[in-house]
């Protein structure tokens, strides 16, 4: 999978580009991201009176109420596609479990003793499963909130609590995810936009994966 730098894109450095995410994977990722962002911003408008001003950006309170659930359903659909594609690669192995126990070292850039990461590191895998569970809860409770007039009271009373709790968990995960994917790990963002990373980047952050594709 290692690429030769195309002549037209040659730069001063003689970096080797490695394809990290295929066009299909990137499309799915950004579809999930956009739907999630829309659901988050419209949901937050109703979460707190101090954020109700967000509804003005999205067409007013009534529009936000009517469209947020559709944004959520789109998110769930796109996530289902992502899930089918990635769930096998996201399974945690023994190395990952040890990695998670040492995650505090990863956080302060002291990676001594940290098991090598495969295509996804254990943190990314954990985020994936967290978003999958939280997303399922959001979908189930969101459907209840969608039609309060036909839903039993007990389900509604549970959902008004679980939907925002799951939303806070998901948005919290998103904050960490965005920080890692942009500022904290230079080079990662290009992997998800243009689809390629340098061999140095791959060797440094996902050495097990890098070795694997080198062998191929």
């Amino acid at each position, binding site marked *: 999978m290692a690429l030769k730098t195309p002549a037209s894109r040659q730069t001063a450095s003689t970096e*080797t580009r490695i394809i990290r995410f295929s066009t299909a994977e990137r499309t799915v990722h950004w579809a999930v991201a956009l739907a999630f962002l829309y659901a988050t911003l419209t949901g937050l408008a*109703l*979460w*707190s*009176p*101090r954020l*109700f001003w967000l*509804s003005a950006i999205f067409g*007013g*309170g*009534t529009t*936000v*109420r*009517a469209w947020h659930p559709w944004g959520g359903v789109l998110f769930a659909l796109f996530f289902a596609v992502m899930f089918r594609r990635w769930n096998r690669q996201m399974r945690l192995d023994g190395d990952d479990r040890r990695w998670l126990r040492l995650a505090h070292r990863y*956080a*302060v*850039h002291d990676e001594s003793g940290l098991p090598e990461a495969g295509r996804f590191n254990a943190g990314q895998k954990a985020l994936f499963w967290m978003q999958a569970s939280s997303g399922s809860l959001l979908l189930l409770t969101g459907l209840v*909130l969608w039609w*309060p*007039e036909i839903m039993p*009271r007990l389900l*509604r*009373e*549970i959902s*008004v*609590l679980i939907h*925002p*709790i799951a939303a*806070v968990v998901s*948005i*919290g995960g998103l*904050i*960490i995810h965005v*920080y890692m994917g942009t*500022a*904290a*790990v*230079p*080079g990662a963002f290009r992997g998800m936009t243009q689809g390629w990373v*340098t*061999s*140095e*980047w*791959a*060797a*440094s*952050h996902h*050495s097990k994966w*890098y*070795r694997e594709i*080198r062998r191929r």
Partner: protein
Amino acid sequence: MTTGPDLKAISATPGGAAATTRSHTVAKLIDTTTCIGCKACEVACQEWNNQQFTIGNFAGTYQTLPDLTHSFWNLIKFNESEQDGQPVWLMAKYQCMHCVDPGCLRACPAPGAIVQNANGIVDFNQDQCIGCGYCMTGCPFDVPKLNPITKKVHKCTLCTDRVSVGLEPACIKACPTNCLSFGTREDLLRKAETRVDALKEDGRPQAGIYNPEGVGGTHVIYVLAQADQPEKYGLPKDPRIPWTVALWKGPLKWAGNALLLGGILGAFLHYLRYGPKDSGKPADGID
């Protein structure tokens, strides 16, 4: 109308409403022992509020409809019961209770869609309503109803339009037995006590007032002959704002905001302290 000195609480508005100097609040008293089920109040309500009747299905009862609807805010419940081996009706007028601590208002996310006037009336402003239906879950009496076409909730306004110009609500005006009265809450609570005493003397030891504490009391007060069993009248025994709603609109809001703000702040501080990861490891260093 979302501002003004005559408001006590405004939905989704931090800080609530302006202070008020008003000392009297209004109330409606329903003496169920003298209700004859004539439905004059139902008709008056429909007439004054200019609403069409919904045609329901005959369900073997004299009751007009099984429940309140978005265009039917005043229902006489024909509760069937038994007394001394005889079937009896326990008539109970059902409508918004105008709670002192309204769960609908607490649940509402739209600023100004639900207001509580200083006189105690809880009113919905359909032009601010976004149709989420949260109030339906917040209300322990299942009163607010969503219009499926316009997606706005509606309920009894305690004829705030009449009250504000010195008239009594339409239902009160129409009642032929004086079972309904309107006045200050203080006066009516006293009147209710007098009536309960009379009922007790009359051999109804269970008689009492329904003014549920769980919602801080209500501005619609009942005299019940069997106050120990309000369920028999179709009234909840110990209504409270659901604890999940109270938790959601109280501590959860603060915890959630702290977590989200803390997350964003934490990411910034992490960057300042530790900076980005470096990718300097030469690729050849591996394997």
